């Protein structure tokens, strides 16, 4: 069986894959279907959903198209989620590998720094970082990654501790490779599989953190975000609850899709390992 077919064997993985494909399609086609500014006024204010087929999901307080905002918001959520998770995994992998491979004082110092980052609630850290540096897409990505790299670092370190005693590492030492080169080129790639198993959880957490930040008004002000949409809808919670509910449902589906697909990947990998 090909890995793809094995992946698509469980209903959970299929559901996850469908959600994610739909989401990427939404994000990628947003500029095609709604080429204009999603912040532009499109019709009467507070039009409920399913009333006017040119504005299927209705309009918000200022008469902006909710569907257009939803699609553009998908772009932001996915971009921030993937970028922050990639940054966190990369930083965590490098720091964890260095700590585990070097051992001694380097290990001690790096792990105490990891402890410190885990002691501060990651959402508070992100909040402080964005509020000090100022909200923009890059800053939000950095802020989320700041609180998310510690998990991967610990996992990478644990892997490296077992890998560094293997024969091929000794071999690399014998042929005179620089320790840093051994750590990053020989050991790190072998420590990656458990990190990748962690990645879906990190992407999901990053998407949720971005949403919470923009809900509190700390998202990139030039972009549509689902968290920002929910916050705007809050002002008319009694009269037009759909404005908060629609982007929230999109968020839940997105994060659920990431989790389900992630579980599918882990199970596929586990089956392959038990087969070989």
């Amino acid at each position, binding site marked *: 069986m090909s890995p793809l077919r094995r992946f698509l064997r469980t209903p*959970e993985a299929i559901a996850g894959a469908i959600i994610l494909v739909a989401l990427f399609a939404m994000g990628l086609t947003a500029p095609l279907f709604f080429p204009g500014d999603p912040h532009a006024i499109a019709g009467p204010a507070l039009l409920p959903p399913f009333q006017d087929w040119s504005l299927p999901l209705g309009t918000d307080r200022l008469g902006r198209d909710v569907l257009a905002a939803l699609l553009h918001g998908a772009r932001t959520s996915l971009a921030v989620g993937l970028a922050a998770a990639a940054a966190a995994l990369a930083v965590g992998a490098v720091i964890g590998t260095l700590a585990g491979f070097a051992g001694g004082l380097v290990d001690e110092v790096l792990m*105490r*720094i990891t*402890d*410190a980052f*885990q*002691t*501060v*609630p*990651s*959402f*508070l*850290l992100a*909040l*402080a*970082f964005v*509020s*000090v*540096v100022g909200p923009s897409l890059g800053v939000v990505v950095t802020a989320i990654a700041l609180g998310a790299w510690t998990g991967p670092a610990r996992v990478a370190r644990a892997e490296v501790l077992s890998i560094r005693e293997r024969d091929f590492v000794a071999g690399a030492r014998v042929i005179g490779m620089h320790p840093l080169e051994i750590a990053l080129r020989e050991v790190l790639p072998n420590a990656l599989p458990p990190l990748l198993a962690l990645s879906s959880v990190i992407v*999901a957490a990053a998407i*949720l953190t971005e*949403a*919470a930040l923009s*809900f*509190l*008004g*700390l998202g990139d002000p030039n972009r549509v975000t689902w*968290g920002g949409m*929910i916050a705007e809808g*809050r002002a008319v*919670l*009694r009269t037009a*609850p759909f404005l*908060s*509910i629609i982007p*929230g449902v999109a*968020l*839940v*589906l997105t*994060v*659920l899709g990431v*989790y*389900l697909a992630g*579980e599918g990947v882990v199970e596929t990998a586990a089956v392959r390992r038990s087969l070989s």
Partner: protein
Amino acid sequence: MTRALLLLRRRLVGSVFVLLIVVVGTFLLLEAAPGDAVDAYIASTGGDAGMIELLRHRWGLDQSALTRLATYLWALLHLDLGQSVTFSRPIRDVILERLPNTLLLMGSATALSFGLGSALGIYAGARPGSFRDRLLSIGSLALYAVPGFWLGLVLIIVFAVDLRWFPIGGIESIASGKTGLDRAADIARHLILPVSALGFIYLALYLRMMRAGMSEVWRQDFVLAAFAKGLSRRRIVLAHVARNALLPLVTMLGLQSAQMLGGSVVIESVFSVPGLGRLAQEAVAARDTPLLLGIILVSAVLVIVINLLVDIAYAFLDPRVGASEAGA
């Protein structure tokens, strides 16, 4: 008892280093912030260049970065977090005033998520692979995907706006004059929705951990032995399988405390609970960076203390923990 004390001593030494790193980190963030306390003060009160010079000198802001770090550390040693510009009061007092509300919210939410989560986990893990097991694990995954602040808003729409069962926000009825038990009941009524919003998100985590732990224990020989002895299934599930899967959940309780604190920032904003999280948001809105960093420091201390308590509880629950140190 010596075991727990030895463990405590080693953890305390480690915690001091960790806290020092956090302090230096917050100081660096404070330095990176555009403008300093004097700019913020002048912006709110007004004043001329001479006044700015005087204040900078008086508050020691014209010194070098290292001197200022030393001053900052020295002040922290005296539990002095500085002055909040927005509240015109010492930051420590503002934080201490808000802390009980957050502790109440966090404590109740933790009890809810741990209690209900592990109970449902036992229910799911009692029959691995059954329909209810699958249903609960999908359900918990879906719950885990829900942003806390959005769940809070949905609860408000349903239970506060439509059904009018609970108040929409706040910690107690304003100027109600209630005292004693009446007041406690009033606060409880206000806290039901925020505690549910915060607790239900993390419930999924305990449910899944319990279930996963139990599926490991089911394979152990002693479970087979218990069946062979003719014990009832109910007794095996509760006294043998669930009991052995419970310990990792206690560790998680400590690890989750930081997440819980972060989560309460948004939940407190949604329900306008005057706690630490809401204070953090107010500090951001008012650009009061020293206050924000004070909150971060206090949160870090809180997380360290909770983890110490969990470690001690763990040493009592599991006689293997710290045994090697006590023997040495």
